[in-house]
């Protein structure tokens, strides 16, 4: 039992079955710390009060992935959702197994992609800690990958000769990046869109 001077922080978690406007970017849910303070009476028991904290403890259910709003994966994304679910059902140690937080993160990203009418990707993994969404250009000369981990996303564009771009994307900025990503799916177009979301959304390593 915590004593009166202990600070206990609760995770801010909200999960709903309906997609919500603002959703992951709703500022009410970031940077919040909930402090449990003892009641004024001498009896035991705690009352929860909310307080904003300067040093934001950004807590979400799975590291910094805001699990707010499950979008039903339907249509072309329905199979992707089923494939992701199937990957959670393998035994521990199987090479196609993904961890539950990775599954949740992947569903979130898939939902965002679906909402922005991005063509559904293909899917693979290289261990339990991430899944990879992959698009290939129609002439098979470029690939775009999104490596989705429980707490981060990385984007990578490659040609047969070399890796062209590599960036990390913050989950909170993913919706803004989706527009640029959807333009890049063609991968034959001018890749200035990639530069836009690189400079706007994440630190980047790139090469021209």
């Amino acid at each position, binding site marked *: 039992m915590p004593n009166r001077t202990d600070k206990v922080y609760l995770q801010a978690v909200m999960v709903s079955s309906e997609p919500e406007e603002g959703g992951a970017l709703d500022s009410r849910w970031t940077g919040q710390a909930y402090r449990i303070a003892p009641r004024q009476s001498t009896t035991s028991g705690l009352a929860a009060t909310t307080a904003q904290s300067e040093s934001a403890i950004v807590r979400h259910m799975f590291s910094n992935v805001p699990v707010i709003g499950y979008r039903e994966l339907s249509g072309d994304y329905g199979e992707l959702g089923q*494939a992701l679910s199937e990957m959670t059902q393998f035994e521990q140690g199987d090479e196609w197994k993904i961890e539950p937080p990775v599954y949740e993160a992947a569903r979130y990203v898939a939902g965002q992609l679906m909402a922005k009418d991005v063509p559904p990707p293909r899917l693979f993994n*290289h*261990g339990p800690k991430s899944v990879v969404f992959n698009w290939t250009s129609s002439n098979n000369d470029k690939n775009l990958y999104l490596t989705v*981990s429980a707490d981060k996303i*990385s984007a990578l564009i*490659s040609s047969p*000769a070399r890796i062209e771009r590599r960036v990390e994307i913050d989950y909170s900025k993913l919706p803004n990046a989706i527009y640029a990503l959807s333009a890049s799916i063609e991968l034959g177009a001018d890749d200035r869109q990639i530069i836009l979301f690189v400079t706007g959304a994440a630190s980047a390593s790139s*090469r021209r």
Partner: protein
Amino acid sequence: MFRHAIHPVSFQKRVVFAVPKFWNLTDQPDGSVLGSLAWERYAPTGRYVHEHGCRLASRRNEAKRRVGKYDEKQRQVYCGAYQLSAKSIRSIASDQLAGVLSADVIHQVEEGEIAHTDLRFHLQADGFDIEATKTAIIDRLWNASSGPLTHVCHCDRDITPHPNSHLDTPPLGAYRDNRSMALRLWGLIRFKVWLWFQGFRF
């Protein structure tokens, strides 16, 4: 070098899976990343390559049966192999954005498989996310591959359609054995002599 494509039979129902790009890269205590290949020197013809792949899949299924966790839907099926050269693997380190310091192929007999070879990547310590680096590695390996050499193991002849139809052709195109007849013959003779010295029976 040959990389075997083995996956659960259930994957054949899902075109969404990029089947040839599944590759188990395991994290090692020293921070490196480890994968597996088969060395042509000890699998000198397609027959030996495929026999190796069939044994791998069979061993995994058998291990599941022994612990009572075998599921027919997740039965592992060997579909075929892709070829890539040791030189192209080692050159991955020269791509700055790959995040790889060095890439090595090291012959390592494992579970009685004489052709088994470790594929080990030492990663750059400059802040690249390790999961994204694994993706970069797989991308480079894919772009260095040719194939697939498809195959149906004897024990999988009941599966129709066979999931090897889902194996994509990589950017380098179909596999071609560019060795001269003399080199192929030499490779086979060398392998047979080595087996004889080792006391193996194949």
